């Protein structure tokens, strides 16, 4: 009998799972369900699209041939609305029922909308996580000759959106509740360097503040009132304060959820033949040993792959995730890993090198002589070596003093590690 593999979600977790299933099982039926209409696209690239830097074509990360070559059936334009774990069926938005033997929930995340007074679903207010969001924003900007925008949230989504808007010649005011930008990604020093650059690029950055009310004029968004009483006149508002796992499908079923859908080290949920991966999953955390949602692209890809192998019967263990980001903002490339802003404690040792005149900053966070956090700003070449050192939990005490030097490379690393890498199969993300 043909095994039916069903995947809800057509982004990197879902697609990697489908790939992994096909690598392992040549005969099963693999179906991917997506509520969007496009063949697939890379969500992190919508800011590039918003900025007019790339076309729709370039956002597609697996072409149509990928599906036919791997005999993956892609069903777009209908949303999965419910799961019946007992009967092993799902129901789509048009009431179609689909049976499965193994199911993957890879529904990603959805934007958080904060409590703001006044009706916030009005023309001119957007969230920014999907291709459609970027398209609708561009359309609105053109029709309404938008000149000024407010972005609520100075995290990665908010700042990437800001970049897109700036590229379209729009003036941006960023409103952030914390006392600095990218508070969850960087430490204070790195945040300050980026904030300065954003301001040099014409952004207004309003910290320690948030929007309490929105104003409407002629049926559309016209301005925001902040907690401090300040009024911002603007033509559009983007709410970018973060995403939460899209766990609606699991609610009311036996599938256990907390912040996200809880999965074990095989990406399996509390229901035997149902798996979850990507931004919706709450999975092993590499650094804390607990379970966390790590909503980033490479983690989603890896989790999808692990889920796919296990679904197809090839037992594969997930080794845990930690934050890793590569973002270029205001012309400064940055890469960061893990715990970038550790609590004040003798447990942590921090190494810093800073050259403001070169817009270069690098920080390494150590715990028990092992790297657990890393920031580099301005120079990113070979940053992945540090990711490898974190993954392998290598004791760096013998070359700690060289970690920040310009000549740092494999020559300084223990020869066994070097040989393991250069002759072995590398390290997983």
């Amino acid at each position, binding site marked *: 009998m043909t095994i039916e593999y069903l995947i809800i979600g057509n982004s990197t977790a879902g697609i*990697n799972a489908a790939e992994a299933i*096909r*690598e392992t099982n*040549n005969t099963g039926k693999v179906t991917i369900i997506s509520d969007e209409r496009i063949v697939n696209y*890379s969500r*992190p*690239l919508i800011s*590039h699209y918003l900025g007019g*830097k*790339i076309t729709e074509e*370039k*956002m*597609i*990360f*697996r*072409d149509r041939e990928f599906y036919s*070559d*791997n005999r993956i059936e892609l069903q777009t334009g209908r949303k999965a609305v419910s799961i019946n774990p007992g009967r092993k069926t799902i129901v789509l938005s048009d009431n179609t029922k689909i049976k499965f033997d193994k199911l993957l929930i890879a529904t990603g995340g959805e934007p958080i909308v904060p409590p703001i007074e006044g009706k916030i679903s009005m023309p001119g207010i957007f969230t920014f996580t999907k291709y459609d969001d970027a398209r609708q924003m561009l359309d609105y900007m053109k029709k309404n000759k938008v000149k000024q925008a407010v972005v609520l949230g100075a995290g990665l989504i908010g700042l990437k959106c800001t970049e897109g808007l700036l590229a379209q010649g729009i003036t941006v005011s960023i409103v952030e509740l914390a006392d600095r930008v990218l508070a969850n990604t960087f430490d204070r020093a790195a945040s300050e360097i980026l904030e300065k650059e954003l301001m040099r690029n014409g952004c207004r950055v309003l910290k320690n503040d948030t929007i309490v009310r929105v104003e409407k004029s002629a049926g559309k968004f016209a301005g925001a009132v902040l907690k401090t009483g300040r009024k911002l006149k603007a033509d559009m508002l983007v709410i970018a304060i973060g995403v939460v796992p899209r766990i609606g499908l699991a609610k009311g079923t036996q599938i256990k959820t907390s912040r996200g859908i809880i999965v074990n080290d095989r990406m399996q949920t509390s229901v035997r033949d149902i798996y979850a991966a990507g931004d919706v999953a709450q999975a092993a955390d590499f650094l804390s040993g607990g379970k966390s949602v790590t909503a980033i*692209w*490479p983690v989603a*890809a*890896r989790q999808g*792959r692990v889920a796919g192998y296990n679904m197809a019967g090839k037992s594969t263990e997930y080794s845990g995730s930690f934050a*890793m*980001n*590569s973002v*270029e903002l205001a012309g400064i*490339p940055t*890469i960061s890993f893990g715990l970038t802003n550790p609590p004040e404690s003798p447990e942590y040792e921090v190494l810093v090198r800073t050259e403001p005149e070169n817009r270069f900053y690098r920080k390494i966070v150590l715990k028990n002589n092992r790297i657990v956090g890393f920031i580099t700003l301005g120079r*990113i*070449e*070979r*940053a*992945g*070596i540090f*990711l*490898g050192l974190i*993954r392998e939990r290598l004791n760096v005490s013998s070359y700690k003093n060289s970690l920040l030097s310009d*000549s740092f*490379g*494999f*020559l*300084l690393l223990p*020869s066994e590690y*070097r040989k393991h*890498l*250069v*002759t072995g*199969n*590398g*390290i*997983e*993300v």
Partner: protein
Amino acid sequence: MQGKHGEMNKTSKKNMKPRRIVLREEYCIGCRLCEVHCITQHSMSRNIIKAYRGTEPRPESGIYFEESGPVSFALQCRHCDDPPCLYSCLTGALYRDRKSGQVLYNKDKCVGCWMCIMSCPLGAIKPDFKNQRAGSKCDLCLEAEFPACVANCPNEAIILLDENGQRMLKNDD
């Protein structure tokens, strides 16, 4: 039926193990000829003099060369079985070649998000900031019988293994 089966094998990764370059650092004499020949091989003219004369754009080598005192070695992409760069790539610019199993790179798709730079634990991909894209990455010299660095390493420090991990010998080896 036979044909169809062959088709399936083409897409199955089990049959896609690539050849692999291995470095024996104790043999490396630090001559850097691997870099010279990598650049030449990836230049327009593929001529060592022209590639270096400045009359044509000189490509970056796909090699990171490290040297300190008596120890030196050249490092290039290992075409991992489980390539982090490929899984991190936002655009699909990095892909696994169906025939050879090599991890290759489509410059036209790349937008320079630097996820590959972030995720490669070897630090084997060079960024090209001028063109905002991943700059150079070993392609095992594609169709060549031996990659240029292997073919021109005078002391057999850089060697090539076949799909089964067996050393591939050059004529003069």
